[in-house]
């Protein structure tokens, strides 16, 4: 008899467990907090003039759509530019400014500028982390002779610091990599 009671209790328990947990609450959406959707490079000619912007923008993050890459114009030969980088997460509103996060963790980050062989352009770091090693959200760019080629911006997380300025030596993980086709005229 006792066993029967146990059995039926168990059965009931099972049914109850199954029945109760039926909270049909719809889950809340998760907005990716670390997605980088947008990199904007603003190149302002030293001494004034129209700034040139390079932008890559991928509003669906790692969804199927490819980033939209735009270059607002060509660089002028022999001109020096003040460059600044802005990194955003635009999947959230208002957009999250990731540049600030990168600058806040400056010792663990560094931007690298890789100039393709055809392009006559040189770059120099303008901001640094607490240890005096390059960070690179600010930089200067000097356009040389008329030429064209690729310019790649790479953000590395936890690179070796100091490094010799090459991606290979720096290591770390790539947080962002964007290649633009640039012309100097």
């Amino acid at each position, binding site marked *: 008899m006792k*066993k029967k009671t*146990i*059995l039926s209790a*168990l059965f009931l*328990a*099972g049914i109850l*467990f*199954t029945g109760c*947990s*039926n909270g049909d609450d*719809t*889950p*809340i*959406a*998760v*907005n*990716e*907090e*670390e997605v*980088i*959707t*947008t*990199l904007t490079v603003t190149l302002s000619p030293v001494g004034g003039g129209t700034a040139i912007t390079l932008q*890559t*923008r*991928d*509003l*669906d*993050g*790692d*969804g*199927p*759509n*490819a*980033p939209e890459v735009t270059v607002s114009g060509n660089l002028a030969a022999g001109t020096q530019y003040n460059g600044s980088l802005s990194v955003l997460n635009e*999947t*959230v*509103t208002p957009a999250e400014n990731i540049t600030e*996060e*990168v600058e*806040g*963790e400056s010792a663990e980050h560094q931007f690298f500028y*890789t100039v*393709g*062989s055809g392009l006559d352009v040189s770059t120099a770091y303008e901001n640094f982390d607490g240890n005096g090693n390059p960070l690179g959200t600010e930089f200067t760019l000097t356009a040389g002779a008329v030429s064209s080629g*690729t310019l*790649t911006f*790479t953000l590395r*997380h*936890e690179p070796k610091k100091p490094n010799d300025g090459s*991606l*290979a030596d720096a*290591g770390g*993980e*790539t*947080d*962002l*990599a*964007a*290649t633009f086709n640039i012309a100097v005229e």
Partner: protein
Amino acid sequence: MRYYALFVLLLCSSISLSQDCNYTLSGSVKDLHDGSLLPGATLILAGTEQAVLSDLDGKYTFTGLCKGTYAIQVSHPYCLSKGFTVRVDGNTTNNFLLEHHLEELNEVVLEGEAYRNQTKTLFENKISNAQLEDFSSGTLGDALNSISGVSSLNTGNTVVKPMVNGLHSSRIIIVNNGVRMEDQEWGAEHGPNIDVNSASNLTLIKGAGALRYGGDAVGGVIVAEAAKVARKDTLFGKTIMSASSNGRGSSVTSQVTKSYKSGWYGTLQGTVKRFGDFEAPDYVLSNTGIFERNASLRFGLNELEYGVEGYYSFFKNDIGILRASHLGGAQDQVRAINSDRPLIIRDFTYDIGNPRQEVTHHLARLKVFRRFEGVGKISLQYDFQRNNRQEYDIRRGEDADNASLDLELDTHTLMLDLDRDLFDAGTLKVGAMARYQNNFADPNTGVRRLIPDYDKYDLGVYAITDYRFGEHLVVEAGLRFDYNYMDVFKFYRTSFWEARNYDELFPEIVVEEVGNQILTNPKLDFYNTSATAGATYSFNEQYNLFFNYSLASRAPNPSELFSEGLHHSASRIELGDLRFGPEVSHKLSLTFQRENTVFGFSVNPYINTITDFMVIEPKEIQQTVRGNFQVWEYRQTNAQLLGVDVDASLAFAEHFRFNHQFSMVKGYDRTRNEALINMPPVNIQNGVVYQNPNVRNLKLSLQSDYMFGQNEFPDNNFEVFVPETETMETVDVSTPPEAYHLLNFSSSIDLYMDQRSKLTLGFTVTNLLDTSYRNYLNRLRYYADDLGRNFLLNLKYNY
């Protein structure tokens, strides 16, 4: 005590009798209660060191006996060992009766396998027990790896997923103390949440034969069980301590059992394992430490007519994942793969940083059974499992210490089973199962859910019967139906939803649109039929032939259905498919076995044909602001796996034994006519064991393990632009590593032994030659070598 006295007496008597010594003693071993024959019982003749096994029909024979009285100890895995005295005068026949507690294992294990595993257990009983204890500081997967046909899919060396005949994850059912493990087992980098020390034996069924626990074991079923507790007043236990040089860690496990003649018993068991960074021959594998804590409690009443058992186990594991395996995009992958050494090597530490996994698993079960006259044994079991899995990645800013994945999976299962004897020569097992499961993905991770929130309901019914025709033939057949229903809430990226054409196919499941995501409520149901049929034919006392066909049907798992996003630990984007239906496997398996203590072997060829096999493979490259990623997409195809497993063992001299294992499996995608990814390469193991019971049971063994290079694999390489060199570089994610050969040494000796306790010291060296190698089935093979040499000291105390 009585037996000891008898022993001595008998020893004297048998020595003094120097007369005609050509008599035989034969008969059968039977169950005391129903008279059923007990195959695989061990009979030891005191004083002569003769030991025989009862055959499939429960028969045994001793030869070369003299006239006199003998003491015989009869033991069987599922019975209380018992001593008998027999008077031999001429060729004598005597039947032994044992109290046979009907054992779950016998109920699950089906045709062929039942006998095979059982005899295997006997044939290698001590070895396999010792092996389990040897793996005390390792994982369940490591222990299973020592069985032919079993390999493992590893993430480093601490996440070891068993792979049976080339299949793994959702295709393998793991049964822990009668409970089917529900621990997010779909994930290739999710190790089974079982403490290897909580099991006293492991049974492997290669195929879907064990219908009781499910019909979806396309690969196989692994049954881990605790030891049976005898009905007597006793208190016993064991403690194993081991220390390893590699990982500079140790593991301690202890268990104690108290039992009463009244049938009540209780067992308490616990394990703590702590290792720091492991080391390859040339460098530290940074962030590969592990910290595992487990405990289990079992109690119950074991009467013949009825019984009850409660079991609770707690498993908690913190596992470091090789730091160098966490990458950004494809450009990082090129660097990592082209480098001989991991890109990040730090000094040894016990600290476990990110990336890491933190897993907790609770398992509780309550089982009652009762035998009813004319009906059979009815058992009812309820079990509850809660699995919490947190995975931590390398993250930025405030999220740095926040988990990227936080899943809680609750499972309730109710099982009702009936076992009954059918006439004299057969049995019938029927049962029903109801299961409810809830998965909750915590949104506070700030990372889109890898697996969505869902409720899942499963119902299953099965029937299995076996029947013996005459002396030599046993046939068996089983059938099972399962119904699965899933109620899911899943957010899709709008861009993906549209790119997949889901907006046209499933407009009715859309709940709402939130930003650039769409909330959907898919309700999926699946009907699965599974079946098994087989026969065993025993030619004589030594040769057996087993044939088995099994049909398994597996519904897609949440990952195959819903994956949609970047999988950091694999550095790739993974996409599931909502449109999938079940995959169906037909497996034919044949085993030819010779059972002999001098020279025994088994040869097991098989062919597994799977329609709508779900496989994930690379499809294209996707550009993101983070760089390029390879997109891996699940698809369904027709697959075929063919293979053969061979075991052989030869006692070639006194105290010496040679063991051999050979496993080969070939997997093909029959639709695309190419090889399947991640198929284990051919593996050959040879070992020599010296064991001398007269010298403190000294055991020395040397084992060679040769792993061939996998030469059949799909080409999934892709190209990526490297800005520094302005070239397109090939990312070689396909080419398997080269063949390698490992030597392992192990030894053990009983330091101390009395009637009540025993102290055993073991010393093992794995990868004796400190060989650098990489294993095709290790997911971290791109980034680092496998483990270097390890010295392991092991102290076991039984009391």
